[in-house]
């Protein structure tokens, strides 16, 4: 037992672990921030998985063509939005069931990504590491937070932006009212389904950006399995955070840390059952969901479609 504790101490003392925890957490944070907005408006947007993968593929292909990370990230965001547009318009314009739409869109993107991967064979590449002066020299957390590839820092801007949009703009108020009480919002002149669609677009663009970040800011090469259910872990992060911005971020970091832990164990020379390690982030997510889901009050109209005159 003391062996295990010693090993855990070793792992959690290693700076490499925190570096990769931040990278993986940031990737989840991109998706989770967007998902938070979509859920605030009343949609459990499972097409986030598809948006992530589309962003990863779009970002890689655009990077291959242009050689520019900026263009790659922009293309990733665009790919993410286009997936979100399909999902949003199917579920909040045509009122098809949001889960059916999400599943179908995810499978479609997976199929397209597999086909394009085999046909175009995207390569990918990685953005340069930029250390932020002073801040990166803070012990332990300094290098982890402020010595990363530069797209990582985008998330530091997106957090306040998302907060401002949700809590300090009229748009954000309307989005939240669409998720809490769509009937009342509708009566007061809020275009409920339009706000819901826009919230999903926002989520899609952040997820697409996150997908492009995964390849261009982190892994360096495209793989169809690169996203591997992480979109659903991002949804779990929103649940973990009780639909608050702060909590969602903590959730993303926590799940990112589980992922980093999985990678750090073999690197530091510890022998742990490989399958158990690989399953760890998913198991942790499930356990956390089990204990935490009932603690918080979710947006009252979450996962309920809105059709005027129907309850």
């Amino acid at each position, binding site marked *: 037992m003391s062996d295990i504790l010693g090993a855990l101490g070793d792992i959690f003392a290693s700076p490499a672990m925190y570096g990769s925890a931040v990278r993986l957490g940031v990737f989840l944070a991109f998706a989770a921030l967007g998902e938070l907005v979509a859920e605030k408006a009343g949609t459990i947007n499972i097409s986030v998985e598809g948006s992530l993968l589309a962003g990863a593929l779009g970002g890689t292909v655009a990077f291959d063509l242009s050689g520019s990370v900026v263009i790659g990230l922009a293309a990733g965001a665009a790919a993410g939005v286009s997936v979100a547009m399909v999902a949003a318009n199917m579920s909040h314009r045509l009122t098809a069931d949001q889960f059916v739409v999400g599943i179908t869109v995810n499978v479609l993107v997976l199929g397209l990504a597999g086909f394009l991967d085999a046909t175009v064979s995207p390569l990918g590449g990685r953005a340069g590491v930029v250390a932020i002066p002073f801040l990166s020299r803070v012990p332990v957390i300094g290098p982890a937070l402020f010595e990363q590839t530069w797209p990582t820092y985008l998330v530091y801007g997106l957090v306040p932006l998302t907060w401002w949009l949700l809590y300090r703009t009229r748009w954000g108020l309307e989005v939240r009212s669409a998720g809490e009480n769509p009937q009342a919002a509708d009566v007061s002149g809020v275009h409920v389904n339009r706000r819901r669609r826009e919230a999903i677009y926002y989520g899609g663009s952040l997820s697409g950006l996150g997908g492009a970040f995964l390849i261009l800011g982190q892994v360096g090469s495209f793989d169809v399995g690169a996203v591997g259910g992480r979109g659903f872990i991002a949804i779990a992060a929103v649940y973990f955070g009780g639909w608050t911005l702060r909590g969602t971020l903590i959730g993303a970091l926590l799940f990112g840390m589980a992922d980093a832990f999985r990678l750090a164990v073999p690197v530091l020379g510890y022998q742990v*059952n490989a399958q158990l390690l690989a399953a760890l982030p998913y198991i942790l997510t499930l356990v956390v969901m089990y204990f935490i889901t009932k603690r918080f009050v979710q947006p009252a109209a979450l996962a309920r479609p809105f059709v005027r005159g129907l309850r």
Partner: protein
Amino acid sequence: MSTDSPVSPADASGPSLWDPRLYALLLYGVSVGFALVISAGLVAVTGNAWGSVAGALVDGAFLAPGRWGETLGVATPILLVALGMVVGVRAGFFNIGQEGQLLMGALAMAVIGTRLAGSGLLLLVGGLAAGAVAGGLYAGVAALMRFRRGVPEVISTLLLVFVAFQIVGFAITTDWFLRDLDPTRPSQAVTSAALPDSVRLPVITVWGNEVSIGFFLALLGAGLAAFVLARTVFGFKLRLLGSNPKVAQQAGVSFGRAGATALFISGAAAGLAGALMLVAGASSARLTAGFSNEIGWQGLLVALLARNRPLLCIPMAILFAALRTGSGFLAATGVDRTVVDVVQAMMVLALLVPPAVEFMRDRRRISIAAQATEPA
């Protein structure tokens, strides 16, 4: 509407000019056609002739010797998974973890078939039953999370898929569990031992095509699902729960119990599908890391494509199986076989549009009629 005498909202939609069956047929025609056109465009854009692709698909699925038997064999687990999905969705639950439940079913079958001694028939029947129970229990984890704690099953079932892959990986790499240690085994890949020949499904040969009797079992399952959903109290309870949980509870249908049963059934169907794949000889009757081979996803899409009608699942499962077996013949045309995945997802997506449009049109008509009847 303005010149008519006031109409009551109930019959505002009026008698349909369309025969519903004709309408459904048209719906499927248009959506499949749409998916094919888009996919043909995709093939053309990547610089290939879509005509030869279509030819290869039909050859691989039906025309070449022995192929349609193969197609029906692939359709069997897809159909079973789809039936489970239908039962779940009718009750209002989206179990999207069939890929994992299928693996757990195959795992249970492999344990019973390779680790226990007994007569072939006993092991076969016992293994299939155990497979169904294993799949059902695995979905039961999601049910527990849903009804105890309110965790949406859409998320938990999917996350459980990744765990199931690791469980199978553990089983086939662990000596005391399922790993094949026979030094004379045909390949060095890490797999379970093959099921003994006595634990296999009988095969019928029809016109040079081998059809496993599993297919007829699945057909029977489709009939059973249709009957239970449409004609029994239990099926009615499930449908009531699916269309309006509040009314269902007021009518005395327990949300937790009926819902958990629905999730269990959907998982059990996937588990049975996995066990059947193994006894029908998929991947040489050995459990491997990639054993499920996306059959779970296919079944899920088939259920959506069949718009949750059990009997419609039969032709849709055969269609999807045909695309899969046909894609085996694509190598010669230079188009990657994954193009089939795109065609399949496009079909489902295209099919979602018309019913939604129709729903919107009906809503509008009813609300116009309601306004017309209101006293001025």
